[in-house]
Each structure stands twice: as C-alpha cells, then as structure tokens.
C-alpha cells in the first residue's frame, strides 16, 4: 500500500489539481503553479547529486581498476574539479567574510548578490564558461554543418516517390535561400514560399494534432495509474 498505492494516489491528486488549476485565474492558483514549478527545479537540483555520483563513480572505477584509457578518466576528474573549485571559491570566501548586515535591504538583494559573485560576467566561473565550455560547445554544434552534408548525400536518392519528394523539397529550399536559386530561375524563391506555406503547414498542423492526442491520452493514463512503468518494481 505505502509502496505502491500511495505514489499512484499522489500522481492522481497532483494531476487533477493541475488540470483544475489551469482554469482558476485566482492568485492562489497562480501562486501554486509558480511554487510547484520552483519546487520541481529544486528537486532537480538536489537530484543532480545522483547524476554526479553516477559519473564520478564510473570514472573512479575506471581509474582504480586500471581499465584501458583510465588516464582520460583522470583528466575528466581534473576538469570537473577545476570547475567546482573555481566556482565555489568566491562563495567560500563569502562564508568566511559574512554579509555586511547594514548593506542588506531585502532578501532579493541578498540572493542577487550571491548569484552575482558566482555567475556574474567576469567571475572566475564565467571565465571557464566563456573560454572553456563555449568554444567546445560551438565546435560540437558546428560539426552538424559537416554531418548535414553527408546525411544529405546518402539519404537524398530518388529511390521512391516519397524519397523523391523529400529530395526535391530540400533542393528547392536550399536553392531558394541563396542568390543561386533566383539566378537559375526567378520562380524558385516563389516555389520555396509555396512549399513552406502550404504542404509544410498542412503536415505540421496534422502532426501537432496527432502529438496532442498522443500526449494527452498518455497524461491521462499516468494520472489514472494505467501507465505506471516509471514506478518500477512491485516490492
């Protein structure tokens, strides 16, 4: 009962509360939504410990079992520590030097002050973000530019009518976006506009209708406890 039924009851109650909440404009109901969204973020923040444990444990085992490539795991540990140490150093200093009581006017100010020391432009963590994480992210993102070419080369073959339509639509749009299309034939940009405004709109709308059907009935199944895979075991 406590292990199985109570969670289902909680899911049911929360689900019904939030369906009803949508239709209540009263401040209490709006506050409830804001609060619960904040709570979900807090739960996510706390749960990060689980993730970090999983990550560190994996690499710890790699190193201590001398698995091939353990050196890389050591580097992972090292860069993780750099982020954490650099990130928390200013706040450790804050703990040692307590807040000047007189300068604190409101709780919002305290929060803001704290946020600023950690993540503000020019803080050490921000430096790591800008000069460590950003170039890595931007490069990884830009690799898609290469992959999209090889995917196009492989996939766009006129094997069937469906594949031909896929190919033609893609080629027309690619042509229409650059001066190339207009140079070849002045009608290409217009065809591009038509493809985007008519068949594309129709397909997107219908897919959205379908997704709506699927996701609402899925939500209902969760609320009514029919879909309970996420709860796992019976014992």
């Amino acid at each position, binding site marked *: 009962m406590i292990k199985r039924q109570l969670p289902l009851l909680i899911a049911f109650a929360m689900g019904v509360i939030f369906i009803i909440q949508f239709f209540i404009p009263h401040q209490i109901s709006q506050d409830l939504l804001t609060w619960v969204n904040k709570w979900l973020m807090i739960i996510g923040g706390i749960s990060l410990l689980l993730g970090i444990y*999983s990550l560190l444990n994996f690499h710890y085992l790699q190193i201590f079992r001398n698995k091939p490539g353990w050196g890389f795991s050591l580097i992972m540990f090292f860069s993780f520590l750099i982020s954490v140490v650099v990130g928390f150093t200013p706040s450790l200093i804050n703990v040692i030097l307590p807040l000047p009581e007189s300068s604190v006017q409101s709780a919002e100010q305290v929060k803001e002050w704290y946020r600023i020391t950690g993540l503000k432009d020019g803080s050490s963590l921000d430096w790591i973000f800008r000069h460590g994480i950003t170039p890595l992210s931007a490069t990884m993102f830009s690799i898609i530019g290469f992959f999209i070419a090889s995917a196009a080369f492989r996939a766009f073959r006129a094997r069937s009518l469906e594949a031909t339509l896929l190919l033609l639509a893609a080629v027309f749009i690619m042509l229409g976006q650059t001066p190339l299309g207009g140079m070849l034939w002045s009608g290409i940009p217009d065809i591009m506009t038509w493809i985007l405004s008519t068949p594309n709109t129709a397909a997107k709308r219908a897919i959205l209708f379908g997704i709506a059907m699927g996701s609402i009935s899925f939500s209902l199944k969760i609320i009514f406890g029919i879909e309970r895979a996420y709860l796992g075991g019976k014992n």
Partner: protein
Amino acid sequence: MNKMMPWFRILFLGLISLLGFNNDIFAQNTLVSPQDFTAFDTPNDAGGSVSLTWRVVPENNKPEVPYLILAATAPDGPWFEQTTLVNLKSDYPQYFGLSASNKLWSYCEITDFKQSLTDDNPKPITATTYFKLAVTDGSKTLGFSSVVSAMHQGNWFDASKINILIFVVIFSFVIMFFISLARKNPDLFIRRIPGLDAIEEAIGRATEMGKPILYLNGLDGMGSLSTIAATSILGKVARKVANYDSQIKVPCRDPIVMSVCQEVVREAYLEAGRPDAYNQDNIFFITDDQFAYAAAVDGLMVRHKPAANLYMGYYYAESLLLAETGAAIGAIQIAGTDSITQLPFFITTCDYTLMGEELYAASAYLSREPLQTGSLKGQDFTKGLIILILILGSLASTAGITFLVNLFKTF
C-alpha cells in the same frame, strides 16, 4: 449636426468665428455626456484590476475628444486623473467573449491608482475605488458621468477557457470509455508500426553480434511527456533485451531520468526472470550540457560500436550529431520523437522513425495490454472528430458562419 454636408459645415464654422462666437459652445453641442457608465471587477483574472465600460456614442467617437477617467478612494473625492486611454470591449475577448455588441461599448481597465496623469509611481489599487468619467475637448472638461464604484477580486473560474475545459472533459471521457470497452473486448486491431517491429530484429542482431544496444531517452528531463513515453518504451525494450540475454546501455542527461530508467530496467529484468543479469552501471549519467552529452554519446558509439541505437524522446539540434555518427558505425537505428524540427534528420539517417503520435502509441503497441490499446482507439475517435470539425468548420466559414471558428479561439 454631424450629418451636415461638409461644405455647409465649413461655411457655418467660418460664419461663427467671423461673428466672434465661442467655438467651445459649438463643440459642447456636438458632444454627449457618457452613457451607462459602469464599474465592476475585471472577470477571469487573478485580481488587482477593475473594469469600466460605457456606451460608444458616435458624437464622442473622435480621437481628439478623449475621455478622461477620474478615480477616488471615497465617493466624494478627492478625484485624481487616471488615464485617457480607452478601447472597445471587443478588444478584450478574454473578458467579454466575441459578441458583436462588444463593439458598442468602450472599455478601460484600471490596475493602478495614480496621483496624476503623469504619475510615474502609481500604487496598485487595493480597496473599493470610485470612478467617474469625463468627456473633454482635449483641454476642458465638458461633462461628468455619475459616480460608480467597484472592488477588485481574484476570480475562481476563467470563463474564457471554458472551451478548453469542455474539450478536456470530452476527451477524457472518450479515452476512458474506449479503455473500459477494451477491458470487455480485449482483441482490438492495431495497425503495424514497422519501426516497433524492427526493435525485436535489432535486439536479435545485437545478441548475435555480441554487441550492446544503445538507448537514449531524449534530451528533456522528466518534466516532458516525451521522456516519460521514452522511459515507458525502455521498459518494454529492456524486457526483450533481458530475454535475449543481450546488453543495454542507457546514457542519461538528467539524473531523475537516470533514476527512473534504472528502476524501469531493473523491473524489466525481474519480470523476465533474470534479476542477476541486471547491471545498474549500464544506466548512467553523463552531463547536463547538450553538446557535451552529444560528444560523449558519440564517443561511446564509436568506441563500443553498439549493434542498434534507439533514440526515443525529445531531441534538439544534436539529433543529427547522434544519428549520423550512429549511421557511420553501421548500427541499426530506430528513432521516435515528437520534436517536429528534428524529424527530418532522423528520417534521413535512421532505418525506422516513429513520428509524433507514434512515439506515444509505442508503449501501447509493444505491451498489447487492452488498457493501453483502448486509449489508442479513443485517440482515433477524437482524430475522426477533428477531421469532421475541420470539414464542417471550413464549409461554415465559407458560408460566413464563424461559430465553429470562435469555438476554438483561445485567449
């Protein structure tokens, strides 16, 4: 007066000014004092706002003859000028609906109490507030309405959303009805979904090759229904994997998703009668950064060379990074996503792709439980209903009937 011929009017005006008559008297004659001025709590809102309405009269309907709204905290003043901005009730269908008569009413919403027209720090209204409406010629006040009062309050039902409520109720009943129908008559026909049939084949091939299966739950957290659907499919897949004695690897981007997946897979192994084969370390967290996660999964793919990659859930730009690398290692790839923008990339790089609604249908399809398949019937029924509404609505709006269109307006 306003029906006068323009030339006559000009002549008349000229004569008056020649004779030295006061123009204000003329102006006063053309304006009418406000009619049916009322104040009430703004409906369908959280509170903090009061609404004022009065009848539109053609004589006053000129931008250079503004209304001036005055407010006070007591019925006999002192009065403070609030605003000169007025709109029509028809501009605020979220409060007043789409009735054609809304065009005949002026409307003004008051949320703050100002000390003057140019008050930069108005205070939110708190207690009962008194209003009166003045008609001005731009500089002089020409007449006042009677004093009205209202108190703002939060409302407990948003009537503008009633159409959504009705739809939710109908849809829930349809789904529940078909589920209960399926309970009585469990043999429901479900069409083939090739992508899902291929999962079995993929697992078989992975077992033969002695290579793992890679399963991704998408990039969203547990707050997204796509992810919940993906974890549900994972349960069914993991059960087959357990039966085949193959291996499944689930790298996660969200720690809560990771926990759910661990639970789901453990349960699947238990149901398959092989709890000893379950290895929690195969369901692991990488990092929550989008492209760092993609880089790590790519690295995982090229180093472990899984025989099959399953991408379920919601994806963003990284979809191609994952699926193209997967294609390069020669894995069987099956994707399922309701992320419309990423569907093209899965279609072009994967062997099978579940599109949109098929992702949500997948767990029902794989489980074949009547409770699950019943809901699919309900979804089909509602889709039929939508088709019907689309046809009827288009015909109706061609005939000039806007009823069906208005029924689906949201505010």
